């Protein structure tokens, strides 16, 4: 059986499972059966994808099914790029299924989740495999709808209905943009197969339009600012393992679509396109993490942080496009590999963090960080795994997030060779934005972890929480281990990505496996190198040495006592720093500009014993400046057009006649 056929069998299995789940979903064992089966199928698909990426055979395998458009059929193809993204999808799918085995038991309405979960996985697999525009769009829409159904799983909770509505509108808009993009790509001849599109020549104006449409279509799914508004509403509304899939995996499927069209189908990118991508990517990175910093809902914070990471990936892709437009093959391979590595890394730690948020939700029923606290004492295993995820996402060595950001910085340092002045001036600023985003990410995750897991419990729910089940913990620990492994052995991952880079940018990074001590060396050792393994070994060795010496030769005495409270030691847990107060310095530095943030203090007059009140005013300028006017305009127009519903038959007939004549006139003038 060819590699693509194996993948399609897994997809068929998932689709069958979705149908089976409808019948089964009311029974007691349904949760175990469905998640067990999706785990097995994802694992098979993952193995297949790994084999085809690591197997060394660079030939793509194709498969045509006699469904879809009658003259076209449905084409599916597995090449190196698709294999890599299948790994991301199925690894995410497998870990989410494993997590779901435990987490799913707490679901109040399993029959609303179980049928759509396998369907969602199947949809994501199909988008990556599709090899013609028609099946691509069909699968894309299938994926969107399945995920929409999962967002609406708990539709009675406040806010979820709105989240689903915004998501539906944005998803339809995105698909429309993609439809138009593929229409332009296929040209007047209308050949929708990717092979034909790849072979065709594309006029510069249509390439520009395709870029804009892809940024609208794939960008809105991935969460590029200012098209991100649905993401922090919809991702947290779904059950946590689905949130992990949507944030960790579905955004990557959108990035896959962007890479497929911009790098593969459209041919050589141009430098103005790269400037647009760099600009949007850097804005997205900084805005995303600033939004996250202001957030006090744990899952929404994670969703905003996804937006930041998508920005980082787009910056890296923009660099790759710029290098390619200038014919700098090696630098393009470096930036492209960095982007893919960040895609992989982000899928690890973002899934892990959403699983952690789900565990907190299971244990406490609470998503508001300012009502949590002290969970490290009551959920020791979860808090350890989440700590690993927080360190990794903050891009700190020796974990994996640092490696991909390090590679992106190395790519930035290659860019003085670019010939265009606009890019020369832009790239340092983009580098500064990336550095700012990385530093703010660390601040944001100190806040997320510190407020949720450390300190004292701020509410009764946090006080009585208990550890979660073993399936959830296993899933979290596997991902935590992957975060560490990808951080200390990045050379292996970079070498595994070589076929993808060769296929897409026509060059690869130098082989890393032959480097001594498993270092990674992007260009040459005298320029830059990094060895995560040794960094970890050194830190572990020096830390244990210090512990040993101090405990052996100095003192090991320890006494517990109350915390120092300046003579005011019975302060309530409410006196601790909360998430809102932790963000105050950063809100004051950045928020006044970005969110028009203002703090209002209401002080009671002297002698009055009422407490003082602090009210914080934040404005989402993207929403109020862009979406609210559009929504108002649509509302205005629809009220105006409303009376068309109540016309007499004569008027309708004349309306139809007038429209017909106008259209014919337009056609006559056009041709």
């Amino acid at each position, binding site marked *: 059986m060819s590699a693509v056929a194996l993948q399609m069998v897994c997809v068929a299995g998932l689709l069958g499972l979705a149908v089976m789940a409808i019948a089964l979903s009311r029974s007691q064992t349904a949760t175990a059966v469905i998640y067990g089966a999706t785990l097995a199928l994802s694992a098979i698909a993952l193995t297949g994808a790994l084999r085809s990426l690591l197997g060394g055979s660079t030939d793509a395998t194709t498969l045509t099914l006699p469904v879809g458009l009658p003259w076209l059929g449905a084409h599916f193809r597995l090449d190196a790029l698709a294999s890599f993204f299948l790994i991301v999808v199925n690894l995410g799918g497998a870990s989410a299924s494993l997590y779901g085995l435990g987490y799913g038991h707490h679901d109040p309405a399993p029959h609303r989740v179980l049928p759509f979960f396998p369907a969602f996985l199947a949809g994501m697999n199909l988008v990556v495999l599709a090899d013609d525009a028609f099946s691509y769009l069909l699968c894309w829409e299938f994926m969107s709808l399945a995920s929409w159904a999962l967002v609406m799983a708990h539709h009675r909770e406040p806010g979820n209905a709105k989240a689903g509505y915004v998501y539906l509108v944005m998803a339809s808009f995105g698909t429309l943009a993609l439809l138009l993009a593929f229409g332009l790509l296929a040209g007047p001849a209308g050949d929708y197969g990717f092979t034909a599109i790849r072979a065709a020549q594309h006029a510069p104006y249509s390439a520009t339009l395709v870029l804009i449409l892809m940024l609208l279509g794939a960008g809105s799914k991935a969460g590029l600012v200012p098209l991100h508004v649905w993401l922090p509403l919809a991702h947290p509304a779904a059950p946590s393992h689905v949130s992990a899939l949507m944030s960790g995996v579905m955004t990557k499927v959108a990035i896959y679509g962007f890479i497929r069209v911009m790098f593969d189908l459209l041919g050589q990118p141009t430098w103005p396109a790269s400037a647009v991508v760099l600009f949007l990517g850097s804005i997205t990175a900084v805005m995303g993490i600033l939004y996250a910093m202001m957030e006090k809902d744990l899952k929404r914070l994670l969703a905003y942080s996804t937006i930041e990471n998508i920005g980082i990936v787009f910056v890296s892709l923009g660099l790759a496009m710029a290098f390619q437009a200038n014919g700098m093959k090696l630098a393009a391979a470096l930036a492209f590999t960095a982007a893919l590595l960040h895609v992989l890394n982000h899928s690890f730690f973002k899934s892990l963090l959403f699983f952690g948020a789900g565990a907190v939700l299971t244990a406490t029923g609470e998503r508001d960080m300012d009502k949590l606290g002290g969970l*490290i004492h009551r959920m020791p295993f979860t808090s350890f795994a989440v700590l690993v995820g927080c360190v990794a996402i903050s891009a700190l060595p020796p974990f994996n997030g640092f490696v991909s950001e390090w590679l992106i910085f190395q790519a930035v340092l290659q860019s003085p060779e670019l010939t265009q002045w606009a890019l020369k001036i832009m790239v340092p600023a983009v*580098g500064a934005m990336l550095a700012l985003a990385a530093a703010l990410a660390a601040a944001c995750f100190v806040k997320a972890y510190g407020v949720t897991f450390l300190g004292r419990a701020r509410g009764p729910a946090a006080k009585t929480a208990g550890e979660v089940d073993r399936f959830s913990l296993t899933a979290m620990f596997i991902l935590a281990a992957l975060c560490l492994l990808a951080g200390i052995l990045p050379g292996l991952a970079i070498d595994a990505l070589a076929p993808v880079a060769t296929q897409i940018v026509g060059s690869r990074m130098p082989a890393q496996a032959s480097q001594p001590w498993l270092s990674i060396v992007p260009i040459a050792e005298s320029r830059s190198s990094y060895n995560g393994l040794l960094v970890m070994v050194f830190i572990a060795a020096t830390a244990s040495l210090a512990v040993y010496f101090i405990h052996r030769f100095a003192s090991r005495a320890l006494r517990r006592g109350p915390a120092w409270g300046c003579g005011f030691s019975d302060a309530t847990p409410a006196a601790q720093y909360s998430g809102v107060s*932790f963000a105050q310095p950063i809100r004051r530095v950045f928020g006044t500009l970005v969110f028009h943030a203002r703090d209002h203090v209401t002080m009671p007059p002297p002698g009055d014993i009422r407490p003082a009140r602090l009210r914080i005013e934040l404005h989402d300028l993207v929403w109020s400046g862009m979406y609210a006017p559009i929504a108002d305009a649509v509302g205005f127009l629809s009220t105006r057009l409303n009376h068309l519903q109540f016309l007499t038959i004569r008027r309708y007939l004349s309306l139809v006649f007038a429209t017909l004549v106008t259209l014919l006139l337009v056609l006559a003038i056009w041709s």
Partner: protein
Amino acid sequence: MVVISDTIVQGVQMLLVLLLAPLLTGYVRKIKARLVRRQGPSVFQPYRDLLRLMRKEVVLADNASWLFRVTPYITFAAIWVAAALVPTFATGLLFNWTADLIAIVALLGSARFFLALAGMDVGTSFGGIGSSREVMIAALAEPAMLLIVFCLALVAGSTQLSTVAHFLASSYVGLRVSLGMALVALFMVAIAENARIPVDNPATHLELTMVHEAMILEYSGRHLAMIELGAFLKLLLYVSLIACVFFPWQIALYGSGALSYTIGAGAYIVKLALAGFLLALFETATAKMRVFRVPQFLGAALMLGLLGTLLLFVSRSF
């Protein structure tokens, strides 16, 4: 044979920074005291403080978690590893290629990440205020530092500190505008990162303007000793960094003989003494600024770094 001598040089370097770090802090304190006409404690006082702290028992807050107890060691280890990777008296150290300048900055970031978490662990407002301000300062200092790294890397064509020092020690660098900007910016970042005046005051306790000291308020005994030693090491690291990049005179190049290593070590001590004196002079001459003035201070460093990098993007000869 080469490996053995390399290992010895690396080991000497690691021990040297560890042993010299408290002395540098003691020396700066002494100079500061003398500048305001006080006698001041002996320059060896920090060693005595460390020993005393290490022998004392730890008083741990009731709800402190394991994270609170491991953080001092993680922080210390991360800073020590970072400090061991900065060339002091010789370039081309054995483990130099383990991590470049970006990774050194990130290692310091790891140390700060854990320290800020530990500040949140006990659940008092002091820890929270310290942590939240520390991450605010870091959110501006780290990008500034990375832009300085970009600047140096573009001049020297490498982010590897040994290569950078090697290149800048060679004669054909000359005076450059971008390097001047990077030096000023690096100095400002170093002030902020080490919690020195005017950003923070290392000598105060229980004052609402403080940052670093509030964050570690709950620490005592050997844990506090580790954190203090880490802070000493960090100061030494930044001084060594400025010395090896901007003033690489007499630094022993890789593979040169024992004599040049000795000269290098002597020159390094002289550089430390000079830098410590200048730091004390600067600290005595300035006043502590309000905490919300710090973003402007660091913003200036960020802009200097960005300007330097931009100039280099325009032309390599700036």
